[in-house]
């Protein structure tokens, strides 16, 4: 019933495995190489510092300054983290330390669904709910006249989107801490909150930092949802109510016209290269935190 005999099958399976493994293992290298070769044209003609810190973006006359996009990305990402990080940390502590397991059983599917909702749907929700909310309530509250499409809108949408990533890691980290540690602290007369603050959070700190780092990297590369609510205006934002532009949004918005202007495609691939390098770098560092954490 088999075409091949047993040893031939063994050999075929092994080859299949090795080839697949090679494909996967060399993938980051090829990603880097492909994008680097494509952006080489730009890197050859311009100084790297001018590209990264140039403020003028006029591809039509050959001016490629990525600074507004980089600043926009950093604003959006950091703001999203500032909103999301405390919420995730508090929720993770509550779910793992205080509440009944029943709540954890509700939280897990909730996290799954939040993680599963596509970014376009988040963007659509941002346009439906967050943007009008900022234009009608938050803007006037701070005395700012805004249409709603702003850095803040993008950050709010992003902060929800990264909740499942951060919360998932945090819950796992808190659950991995042996319960005896908390019991010992309680036995010494510490209150529950003191034990959590002084023992558990301290022990989980490298893991918590890693969780935030992964969230940060995820937020930095998020494209569609941000693109839909951030406003897409190339200028340095002065406040969170100003519209901005992010690196992923730049790539996604201009793919249609990138072959019509010289070096434009090269510039967009350079933006992708920046994203790749930043995400690899962040993930690399955070892994060392996790490894340190695992050694305890």
């Amino acid at each position, binding site marked *: 019933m088999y075409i091949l005999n047993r040893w031939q099958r063994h050999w075929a399976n092994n080859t299949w495995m090795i080839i697949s493994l090679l494909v996967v293992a060399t993938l980051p290298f090829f990603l880097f190489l492909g994008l680097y070769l494509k952006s080489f044209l730009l890197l050859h003609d311009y100084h790297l510092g001018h590209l990264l810190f140039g403020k003028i973006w006029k591809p039509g006359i050959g001016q490629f300054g990525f600074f507004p996009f980089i600043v926009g990305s950093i604003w959006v990402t950091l703001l999203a983290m500032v909103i999301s990080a405390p919420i995730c940390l508090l929720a993770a502590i509550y779910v793992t330390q205080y509440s009944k397991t029943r709540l954890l059983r509700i939280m897990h*599917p909730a996290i799954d*669904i939040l993680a*599963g909702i*596509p970014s*376009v*749907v988040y963007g659509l929700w941002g346009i439906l709910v967050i943007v009008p909310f900022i234009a009608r309530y938050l803007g006037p509250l701070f005395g700012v006249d805004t249409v709603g499409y702003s850095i803040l809108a993008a950050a709010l949408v992003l902060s929800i989107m990264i909740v499942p990533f951060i919360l998932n890691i945090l819950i796992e980290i808190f659950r991995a801490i042996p319960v005896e540690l908390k019991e010992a602290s309680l036995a010494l007369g510490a209150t529950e*909150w003191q034990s959590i603050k002084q023992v558990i959070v301290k022990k989980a700190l490298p893991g918590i930092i890693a969780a935030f780092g992964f969230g940060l990297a*995820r937020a930095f590369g998020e494209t569609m949802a941000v693109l839909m609510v951030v406003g897409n205006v190339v200028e340095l934002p002065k406040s969170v109510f100003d519209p901005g532009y992010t690196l992923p949004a730049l790539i996604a918005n201009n*793919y249609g016209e990138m072959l019509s202007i010289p070096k434009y495609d090269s510039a967009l691939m350079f933006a992708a290269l920046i994203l790749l390098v930043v*995400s690899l770098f962040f993930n690399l560092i955070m892994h060392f935190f996790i490894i340190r954490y695992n050694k305890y």
Partner: protein
Amino acid sequence: MTLAQKIEEKIFKVLMIIATYFILVVLAIIIYSIFKKGIKSLSWEILTQIPKGGYYYGKGGGILNAILGSLCLAFGATLLAFLIGLPVALYINVFLIRWKKVAAFIRFLLDLIWGIPSIVYGAFGFTMMIYLGLQTSLLAGIITVTLFILPIMIRSMDEILRTVPYGLMEASYSLGSNKSETAFKIFTRQTISGIITAILLSFGRAIGDAASVLFTAGYTDHLPNSLLEPVATLPLSIFFQLSSPVPAVQDRAYASALVLTLIILIVSLFSRGLGKRYHKTKINF
């Protein structure tokens, strides 16, 4: 315990409860607003017709092209990722079981790849297409999305394959089977529910991602009929319809978003249900 400590504990406990329920409430609001907006404009016509002339100015038609396109793309990518991912996950867990450092390095590499944003895959796919002289097509989209979901597929299979008890492998060897037979016949059967969950998870990712198909799959008003032609996808159809100034078209974007969300909810429900159902057949040592 001083009063200050008591107050601190109380405050933080209230904050924690607020944070937890805040997340649940936000999820409920998202689902509610998507449903409320989408259900109004959802109709049989939208689900079963392709865009007619003037569709993007508010004339008749539907998004069948995008629904079928997305399904084709996600099926293709999931299949391809499974064919590459399963052997890798098995290799790590069967062949590299004594090479802990190598296995750890591959897992680390996979986690790194997992963190790469999908737009980077899109851009990479685009450069590859230019090198190879390919047009935007279903095939290019499938390849790009495959790369994007590969780490998700492998790591979630790996997580479940790691739980296979050592004794099962020894038993299989002692009966005379070789490593690849142990991997493909014993390990896969023991972890079938986890593997299906991994496949469904990757499918959900593949169908929902827009940034990676933006460059590579293109967009068309026709039904997908060839691997080498552009194909419409649901996320992009939502995006394009939403950018239209015509309210009727925007309404259809909401309906499309509802369709996409429903597909993903169903897939995720399925994977939960399957995980529970096949749990019983597992052998425990």
